[in-house]
């Protein structure tokens, strides 16, 4: 550990640039799935523990399409609608029935969904670690100390485009307005003629589509494996707990923060701690929030 610290800050400080860049690339992807979680949580009060498995599912869909020689942009355009439909079906089959139940029910039911998805993906694709190799040029700087594959840059641009599209959609479109109105006051929204059930279904499906998009990006810049989903769920929960619901700039900021934290822990302490890192940050955020609330004699709820 001491050697790694010295390497970072004494011998080759330029490696920091590499870590920060990597942190930003992965943080952008985390922000996407975390925003979906915040949306579902804020609008319909469902805590979706299957969030990470939606991401992995999107990744595997992209992987399957890539095997069929489909170009990248088209993959994104196919995966997102597919995941949208999948999300809508899940809403009808299970989420609608647990909407008015207590919060633990949603957590446990989605955990069951998460187990189910993992196992089905495992049965279809096998437990191997997979990735999509885009075979694109790699840029380097500082005597090969910093390498940036162009696929990562494309991913970042795509993530930014999706984020902008989501913001504009939520602000401008009628559907976005309906979602925000429902989040504020479901009863008033219903009185004003908004079909709450459809808004909920749309929100959940929209979340699945966002996760699918994140999954496509993950499969390009990183690796996917049927059982990696839970870490994405944990990351999403950490980001949302830190940033609060429905605050997109804060979600993106927290996403970058977690990306950087993970990359630094991985470099300094060794890769064995890379899974523990997002969990630790979730616990730290929860503990910090408790102390923050305790000052006002309140609890995190």
């Amino acid at each position, binding site marked *: 550990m001491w050697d790694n610290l010295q390497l970072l800050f004494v011998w080759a400080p330029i490696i920091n640039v590499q870590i920060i860049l990597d942190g930003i690339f992965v943080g952008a992807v985390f922000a996407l799935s975390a925003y979906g979680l915040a949306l579902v949580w804020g609008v319909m009060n469902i805590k979706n523990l299957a969030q990470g498995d939606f991401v992995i599912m999107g990744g595997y869909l992209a992987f399957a399409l890539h095997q069929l020689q489909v170009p990248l942009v088209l993959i994104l355009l196919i995966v997102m609608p597919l995941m949208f439909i999948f999300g809508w079906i899940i809403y009808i089959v299970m989420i609608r029935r*647990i909407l008015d139940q207590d919060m633990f*029910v949603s957590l446990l039911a989605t955990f*069951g969904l998460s187990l189910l998805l993992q*196992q089905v993906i495992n049965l279809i694709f096998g437990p191997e670690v997979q990735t999509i190799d885009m075979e694109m040029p790699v840029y380097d700087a500082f005597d090969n100390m910093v390498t940036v594959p162009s696929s990562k840059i494309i991913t970042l641009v795509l993530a930014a485009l999706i984020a902008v599209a989501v913001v504009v959609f939520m602000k401008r479109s009628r559907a976005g307005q309906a979602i925000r109105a429902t989040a504020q006051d479901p009863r008033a929204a219903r009185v004003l003629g908004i079909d709450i059930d459809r808004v909920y279904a749309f929100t959940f499906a929209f979340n699945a589509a966002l996760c699918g998009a994140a999954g496509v990006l993950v499969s390009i810049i990183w690796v996917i494996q049927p059982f990696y989903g839970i870490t994405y769920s944990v990351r999403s929960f950490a980001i949302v707990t830190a940033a609060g619901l429905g605050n997109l700039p804060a979600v993106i900021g927290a996403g970058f923060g977690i990306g950087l934290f993970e990359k630094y822990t991985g470099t300094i302490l060794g890769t064995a701690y890379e*899974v523990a890192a997002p*969990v630790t940050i979730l616990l730290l955020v929860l503990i910090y929030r*408790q102390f923050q609330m*305790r000052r006002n004699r309140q609890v*995190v709820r």
Partner: protein
Amino acid sequence: MSMNKKTMFTYGGLALFGILGPMLFPQYTLSIAYLWMMVLMASTWDTLGGQMGYNSLGNITFFGVGMYVSAIVQISFFYDGGVGEYTSAMGSIKPEFTAAEYFWGLGLGILAAGIVGLALSLVFSSFMFGLRGPYFAIGSLGLAIAVAEVTITIDYVGGASGISMPLFPGDIEFRSTFFYILCFAFTIVSHFLLRWLYSTQFGLAANAIRDDEDKAEAMGIPTLAYKRIGWAIAAFFMGCIGAVAGNMAGFIDKEVAYPIPTFGIFMVAMALLGGKGTLWGPVLGAIIFHVVKEATWTYLLNLQWVALGLILIINIVYFQQGIMGWLKTKYPELFGIVVDTSNIADDDEKEVAR
């Protein structure tokens, strides 16, 4: 602790099954041992989850920590080279323990596992009980994952490659009977402790915390102390049974010690299946769950885990009240609830008269 006839019969039946089961069907001894283990897990989960409304997804942490603690105690007490040397040899060292040494080590190991689990739960409660509802559930799940991930980075306890436990001094039949008795005994002790506890003020306070914690606090109930006690009891028993399970398995690593997707979720699912917040719900749920699982598991081949996810979803989405809750609404007389129908009849007559 007064019991009516029905309860006596239930206990009699369970005791008979517990004693005669392994005698009549010796090949199922270990399977029935796991049944009692699951009853214990579901019941102790229910102390915090059902009675107090603090749904922990991380009780399995104490199970795994207990397993490792007992391994350390058992090896370090009677092997001169120490735990580090034993684990770095990757199981090639097979020290010969005498029977006395083994059983002393096991007893001390189980005790140490329980105490460390209890202490750990007290540490956790200092920073976990400011979280409510879903935050507590997610936080405790995070704790379990974090502890599991940190454990496998410690070379002292074998890192990712695990530890093989000391060999049992005796033949295989004596071995399974011995561990069966341990599991059965721990389950009985935990059940009667919880039964007594729920009949005292603890039970009332726990249910008050579940129903409205703010009001309970305003009434002067020391809620934090009660929550600590509840979790500490669960942690103690989870630690002890973890130690037993580790010795039953014979080899421990991350998958055996921290089975978050299996036992960690099973115990919650079983408590929900039977009906949480009741003394008998988790027991009933665990028995049904285990019997169904054992009967169908081998026929499902690769689909076992898919089936498990489906059971969880169907259980939670469609049968939220659990079996006990369903029975309660269906046959209220069994629970001593008298349904007063006279008013309804009166109203009907008035309706007709009008």
